[in-house]
């Protein structure tokens, strides 16, 4: 058996563990649900949705091969997890297992449940640790904010390979021709909603803005349809607990957009609408989404690209090609599939980051 085959076998063992957690008829699956609700803050329906639709339990052999080939073997692998998306622990640990037989997982303090559940379902496959203890020739897969990743990196000894996955988000780009049928707008709105709702938009695949290439009228029509779809989704999958500071930021976004443009209520969140063009702002998560008509999609995407993990694209091949050229590292899928990337490696393929723009000093 080759090392690659052994690596894939370790990943398959982890997938089997995930399958037990996802299964509501498995004892562990039943136990997992309330634990995950308490740990994540998501509603019970939100946890169920994530387990059913976002936790990868049946990857293809091709995807497993790609996942295994996406990493470089290491003596030991360390996985430092963040709290944003609980199912992300599955893929992150899988990447660790693909690169080493010795895997150490440091869960998020705020959201440790999924890592512990996987460890219980696959005893001995990896170890849960409280502290990162990497040595030269180890690899560290780290997830979290750019600031947190910087802190992790600075504490590593020389010779450790560091694979950071930092701040990111999804963006939808829709080409809406004049007089696009209402049914088509509704279909697109439902698709975007199905990407917004999982994890209450706290994931790096969650769309936070929709850029509309089209007229003001179509922008407004789409925003209205999206607000209705989000409100309807709220009834099926209620939003969970939102940290107070995020709630404050959402209120500030809503008020700013009320003054500068317009806002539509959308369940527990809102849709900010900038139909006049030129406005691009990213609202805080918690099912708040910004719909902006853009005149120059290239310029807007150029400004956003360093944060974009995935594009949800509906439009011409030329548009998709333009996005591929502007942000080749970002995934591109149809709306409705942003939260379901193939199990073929890290969801976040960005490997080069631009430094934040230099601050200018001008007191007022």
């Amino acid at each position, binding site marked *: 058996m080759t090392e690659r085959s052994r690596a894939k076998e370790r990943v398959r063992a982890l997938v089997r563990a995930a399958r037990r957690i996802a299964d509501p008829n498995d004892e562990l699956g039943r136990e997992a649900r309330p634990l995950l609700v308490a740990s994540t803050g998501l509603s019970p329906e939100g946890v169920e949705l994530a387990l059913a639709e976002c936790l990868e339990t049946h990857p293809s052999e091709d995807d497993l091969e790609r996942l295994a080939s996406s990493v470089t073997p290491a003596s030991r692998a360390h996985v430092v997890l963040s709290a944003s998306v609980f199912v992300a622990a599955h893929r992150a640990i899988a990447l660790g297992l693909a690169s080493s037989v010795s895997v150490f997982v440091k869960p998020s303090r705020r959201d440790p449940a999924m890592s512990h559940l996987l460890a219980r379902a696959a005893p001995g496959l990896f170890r849960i640790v409280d502290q990162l203890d990497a040595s030269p020739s180890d690899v560290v897969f780290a997830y979290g904010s750019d600031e947190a990743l910087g802190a992790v990196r600075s504490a590593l000894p020389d010779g450790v390979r560091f694979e950071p996955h930092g701040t990111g988000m999804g963006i939808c780009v829709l080409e809406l021709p004049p007089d696009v049928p209402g049914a088509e707008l509704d279909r697109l709105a439902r698709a975007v909603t199905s990407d917004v709702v999982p994890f209450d938009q706290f994931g790096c695949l969650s769309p936070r803005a929709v850029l509309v290439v089209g007229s003001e009228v179509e922008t407004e029509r789409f925003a209205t349809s999206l607000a209705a779809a989000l409100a309807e989704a709220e009834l099926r999958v209620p939003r969970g607990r939102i940290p107070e500071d995020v709630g404050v930021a959402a209120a500030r976004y809503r008020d700013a957009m009320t003054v500068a443009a317009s806002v539509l209520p959308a369940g527990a969140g809102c849709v900010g609408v900038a139909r006049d063009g030129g406005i691009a702002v990213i609202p805080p998560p918690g099912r708040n989404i910004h719909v902006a008509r853009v005149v120059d999609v290239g310029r807007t995407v150029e400004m956003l690209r360093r944060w974009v*993990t995935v594009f949800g694209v509906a439009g011409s091949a030329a548009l998709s090609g333009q996005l591929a050229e502007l942000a080749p590292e970002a995934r591109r899928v149809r709306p409705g599939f942003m939260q379901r990337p193939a199990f073929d490696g890290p969801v976040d393929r960005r490997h080069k980051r631009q430094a934040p723009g230099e601050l200018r000093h001008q007191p007022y």
Partner: protein
Amino acid sequence: MDLLRESDALHARVQALARAWDRRIAAPESFDAIATDIVRHQMRYIPGVRRLIEASARASLAPDMIPAVPVDAFRLARIAAHPPELDVVRFRTSGTTSGAPGVHAMRTTETYRALCLAMGRRALFSAWDGPAVVVALAPAPGATPTSSLGFMMAAFMDEFDGRALGGEGVFDVNAPERWLFGDDGVHLAGLRRAARIASERNEPFVVLATGFALVALLDALDGATLGEEAPTRTVVMSTGGLKGRTRTIEPSELTRATARAFGVPEAHVVGEYGMTELASQLYEGTLPGGALRSARNVYVAPPWLEVTPVDPATLAPVALGDVGIARFVDLGNVDFPLAILTEDLVRRRGDGIELVGRRQGAPLRGCSLAIEEMALSPGPVAS
């Protein structure tokens, strides 16, 4: 045009209020009376303000109840009662991480100038009679100023100095010998020369500076001082944070080092707090003999500006002595939203406001992004 007639009348009332305060006579009318009429005016002519008030559960036209506009809104669109073609200046805010500025468009600068001068006189120019030599550690604003701070500094030079800096030439507010900081750093020789002129004239020497420029001055001095040239009646106005552009230095240390550099007591270094979104400023009242009195780091507002620390979540006023974010109601904002909500943390102390810091935006943890981090290009025209 009703808009202009109403606006002009409101400007006149605000200026009258400032004039009365400047002359130390009774106010012609109350803060609330003017504020309520400005709100009515803005409800009529600023659709965004009307939408915000109508959307508020606490909707009321009372000045302490009207919803305040978050400063982020100004990075998203031009917000003003008047159309863009009537703009005489467009002051730009400092950029965010992405560099997107907000804009405060004015159709007249008369009220802004009058308010700056009335408050500046009390805070910086009231300790001694007569003219002063006024210079700035800032770039010259030019014919079309885009910095409200630069405009105010120029107004101070014009009002409290108004003469050529040496020789017998005519006063030129944009003369390079008055604006002593630029891309090439601090013009140390020019600053020494201006200080000598003030000493020779036996006049106060007033240096208007940003914190950033003062750090650059200290670096340029490299331990030396201006004590030989600067008169004992030197006042330094210090404003603005350092905003990540320079080496870190605590405000108290900056004050101490600045005072030492000019050879004056620390009380002669006077903090100013302002922002592009406001037409009014607050000052520390530390200058001995000055008309404004307060402790260090306690900023006093003029009577046409109300500052209320409010809870960031509920926006209700916090208990006396508690820290909240600053909510401003500025009568100088006749054509621009009257009530402004910032993320600056403040606490009421006596008759003033203590600056505590700046509230962090929405968390950046995990995959989240803060609105301030991501505010991009301002839109074209919206109202």
